[in-house]
């Protein structure tokens, strides 16, 4: 479903589609302006210098690996929390790929994101084992509590909610992950306590 919407996700203005197509075929670099987007929010947007540094570091250390693109994207997302559209031309150039190819990879994988996440990312398992233990009720509770749906971030930019299909915690369902920490047998009460802790730490 997510993937079905990829084509419409591709919200580059029509007039730029032409240059995109040219880029795809001929590797003509038409400059970054083609890919500039309107920022979603002023908050959390990465400073140009931090962005440049993260992208440059990732490329310098990883580009000679066979199949370097995923490691580079991971490195950028680890550093910045997302893969800014502005980084794509540089990655494409370093790997002798078209920008379309790089964008295609970023958009294919659920884990990679092209917008800045909230301060914390909450991955909630939607898979069968968690469903068998009240995962759907937990999902509803979390969405109500945070006031957002999947793939959204709270208005204060603190928590992003993402679905995940199995965390390997199936013997202690339902499970969720907050940043790199995993939690099993999460009742609605336990979730509320976790979120209160997060909010207190903000």
């Amino acid at each position, binding site marked *: 479903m*997510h993937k079905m919407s990829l084509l419409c996700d591709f919200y580059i203005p029509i007039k730029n589609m032409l240059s995109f197509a040219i880029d795809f075929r001929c590797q003509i670099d038409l400059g970054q302006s083609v890919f500039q987007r309107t920022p979603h929010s002023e908050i959390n947007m990465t400073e140009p210098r931090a962005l440049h540094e993260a992208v440059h570091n990732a490329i310098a250390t990883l580009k000679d690996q*066979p199949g370097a693109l995923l490691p580079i994207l*991971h490195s950028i997302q680890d550093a910045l929390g997302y893969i800014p559209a502005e980084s794509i031309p540089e990655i494409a150039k370093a790997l002798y790929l078209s920008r379309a190819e790089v964008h295609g990879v970023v958009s294919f994988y*659920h884990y990679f994101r092209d917008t800045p996440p909230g301060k914390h990312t909450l991955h909630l398992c939607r898979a*069968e084992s968690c469903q*068998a233990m009240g995962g759907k009720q937990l999902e509803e509770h979390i969405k109500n509590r945070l006031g957002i749906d999947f793939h959204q971030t709270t208005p204060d930019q603190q928590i992003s909610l993402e679905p995940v299909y*199995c965390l390997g915690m*199936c*013997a202690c369902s339902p499970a969720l992950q907050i940043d*790199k920490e995993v939690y099993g047998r999460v009742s609605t009460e336990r979730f509320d306590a976790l979120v209160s802790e997060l909010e207190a730490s903000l």
Partner: protein
Amino acid sequence: MSITVYVPGDSGAIALGANQVAKVLLQEAEQQGLDIQLVRNGSRGMYWLEPLLEVMTDAGRIAYGPVQAGDVKSLIAADFLHGGAHPLKLGVIEELDYFKRQQRLTFARVGLTDPVSLDDYLQHDGFRGLKNALNMSGADIVKQVTDSGLRGRGGAAFPTGIKWNTVLNTASEQKYIICNADEGDSGTFSDRMIMEGDPFVLIEGMIIAGLAVGATQGYIYLRVEYPHAEQALNAAIATAYQAGYLGDNILGSGKRFELEVRLGAGAYVCGEETSLMESLEGKRGLVRFKPPLPAISGLFGKPTVVNNVISLASVPIILDKGGDYYRDFGMGRSRGTLPIQLAGNIKHGGLVESAFGLTLRELLYDFGGGSASGRPIRAVQVGGPLGAFLPESQFDTPLDYEAFAQIWAVLGHGGIVAFDDTVNMAEMARYAMEFCAIESCGKCTPCRIGSTRGMELMSDIISGQNPAKNIPLLRDLCNTLLNGSLCALGGMTPYPVLSALNHFPEDFGLDDQADAAA
């Protein structure tokens, strides 16, 4: 002399509070002047008892569980360090029925040892298989694996020895060993447990695979959802390099094997081997046409072995004790042991490694203790999101690849998810279609379009719209998916959908099975 205390570093135990237990234990020990040595072991696989704390005493390793941070003080007061009595005391793990009835070959060390200690690994029979393999020809290693009867534990159950033999006999300057660690099936966690609890056994298995087929480069394609496994693997790989088990001169033999962990990025379809290779090459994880087989033209166009974590982790014991030893476990054409994972609505969820042949009923009730909710178990899904749902009438089916195939079900990766009688099977069928739609790589039409149409159709059926028209349409669509999809994602989504319809027609608004078939 310090006392060794074990608190699992397994992420499942951590998810239930093991880190807090470890932290409080160390604090209290320091305050009270207790001389303890803390080991973060893997999990014993009994998750209802996690966090499971063990202490080494003169009477063996005594376990307490489930322990929360708040219990630590009372445990110390009860002198748990010398096996003192406490309401949470369980005794020796190996004597618990759940554990005693298992046959742990692949999981022999998991939970027992310090996962990242090479010394511990060596003391518990580690690298014995590799030492044997270093003195054997590639063909002889392949023969041992073929003789063992090992079949791919990822789900497809293809004979591992035959796959290796093809790669061995395909001439190429460069060959690859890929470990498929993209364990995405719900209800499965055995790969995770091995990687977190005994990473050296996987490394050993991959080195042996490399020696067998003449491959010098290995990749572990690990799902990004497993950060703890990544940590354990990278620590073990670094140690293995330092100690000369990896690199260009394995234990002075002049033979070479390099190994690296690569992370996936949340795409379920990348557990399909050709999609996985595309991903490793840095591309979108689109499924490739077969042939050519990966064994002939795989990663970067070179001959490649792609094996599941458990398949590779079962190789060291085969090379240590011989193919015949392993083959003597099991039934029919399903040889050896299968790490079974009990999940979902089950009282005693966890890992049960046993020879093939146990029935679902034994697993669900004798091991699992029935549902967690105390309600009747109405259905189980075996083999992940693409596995069939089985009703109570099929619970006597033995775990055996062929026995499952006979009832139009799959064993897959050995994950069993139990549902109690509150489950709505039509909703589960809808979810199966939705999952396929979300995860489809988009290359073939039946899967890309069919899954979305299937989701819409299921929504209509659930809302009671025109069942006389929609049920046959659903069957027709499933038929297209089954026969027209490029890989198992589209090709097997009909398993959960149709098994739900066939066994639980009442949830689809139908009176009986005859209506369902109409």
